[in-house]
């Protein structure tokens, strides 16, 4: 196996280590879930949304996905719940809802 076949550090044996421990799969960290950092989640109200894309542009985590219909959907696998999208949305179409215990 080669290092590029692993996404978890504790699965890698010394034989798997690529030359110079170079990571050869671009963006492989995208499999990592950071959604569990959230204590709040963004809720989009499509009525108010004017598809301006500012939420997508301002997300530090690239955790808002542009959809084909022009709307933008939070990617809850990665969204850390910082609330920047809600804060800058010109139409207040995004509100942050506290994550409750499931």
């Amino acid at each position, binding site marked *: 196996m080669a290092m590029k076949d692993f996404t978890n*550090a504790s699965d*890698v044996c*010394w034989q798997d280590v690529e*030359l*110079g*421990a*170079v*990571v050869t799969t671009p963006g492989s960290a995208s499999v990592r879930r950071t959604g569990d950092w959230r204590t709040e989640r963004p809720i989009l109200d499509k009525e108010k949304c004017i598809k301006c894309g500012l939420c997508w542009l301002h997300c530090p985590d690239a955790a808002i996905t542009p959809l084909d219909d022009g709307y933008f959907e939070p990617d809850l696998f990665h969204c850390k719940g910082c609330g920047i999208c809600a804060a800058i949305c010109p139409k207040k179409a995004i509100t942050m809802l506290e994550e409750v215990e499931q």
Partner: protein
Amino acid sequence: MSKRVVLEASHAVAEAVKMADVDLIAAYPITPQTHIPERLAEMVADGDLDAAYVPVESEHSAMSAVLGAAAVGARSFTTTAGQGLELMHEAVYVASSHRYPIVMAVCNRALSSPISIWCDHSDIMSCRDTSWIQVFCLNNQESFDMTIWAFRVAEDPDVMFPIMVNLDGFTLSHVTEPLELPDQADVDKYIPKYNYRLALKPEAPSSHGCFGLPEIYTEVKLAQEFALRASRPIIDKGWEEMSAMFGRSYKAIETYKGEGAKTLVVTMGSLGETAKMVVDQKREQGEAVGHLNIRLWRPFPFADFRDAVKGVETLVVLDRAISFGGPGGPVASELRSALYDVENKPKIVGFIGGLGGREIDAETFAYMIDRGNEIAKSGSDYLYEPILVRGLDTGTGVRG
């Protein structure tokens, strides 16, 4: 067809760099290696060498620049000495950990303080565990040959480690003597084209120098350790090919008049030439004395060394650096540990001298051989004996 020339060792190294078709040179001045980057600058300025010449602002940046160049797949060279080698020290580790085949000439120089621009091996001793392949040269011919050999071996897919070519500051770097230069065609054959599989390029974005969490750091380091040791066959193959193509043969451990020798005097670097002279004299006087040259310092050639000393009673080891408060001579202590588990091994008598440019002449070597044999018989609890120290009676050593 090779050509006889007369060159300073520094210029011999520059000649080798030119013939190796280097793509980038990072240059920074520090006595006594400066003639190398100076000559390379002339070559680039006159169009004799098509390479990027980057006059960086420090040795730390010299090593950092060749790291960058190596990352994009450029054949890269830099050179330094003494304090410069210390300043770039953290970057030296990165070169080997990233497995970049950088070649660096080190004109060995004493470390401050006091500041000394003259030769000893204290600078290179700080690089002992940096996972670079390290070799030593005895003369100008070797300074040229080891540099050519370094590019061929470093870039081999079964190696991919940076190499330090050590030549003694001043005693080699500033001494002009004749040597043979091979044809460019032969060098082009000897050093294969280099194509770095993981080079940084937009069509295959890779990440070099990532963050190593505890769960993976050990595996990465052991992979590096095993690879460095596994590079040995290619190190030898490089010398064998050189012997076949250029007619000069080199080995990790070389003995001179070692057959039947009871005593071997051991050195690294250019003092080996002087030591061989004394071996000739001693042989003429009927004494079974030989010389052992350690050419390959890292990865240390344990097996070759043990074979070379079979049947020998005494090793007289001259160290050119002090491991203060430790075993004294770093080379002597490594040789002791290499032989520790060997049955009927020779006694090792350690001397420390040649520091900060102090000369070691034939007479002093003769004294060391005699004194070494004496100690070997009488036994001693000295770790080592410093030589030619005003105020220290001869025969007085340092205990642990």
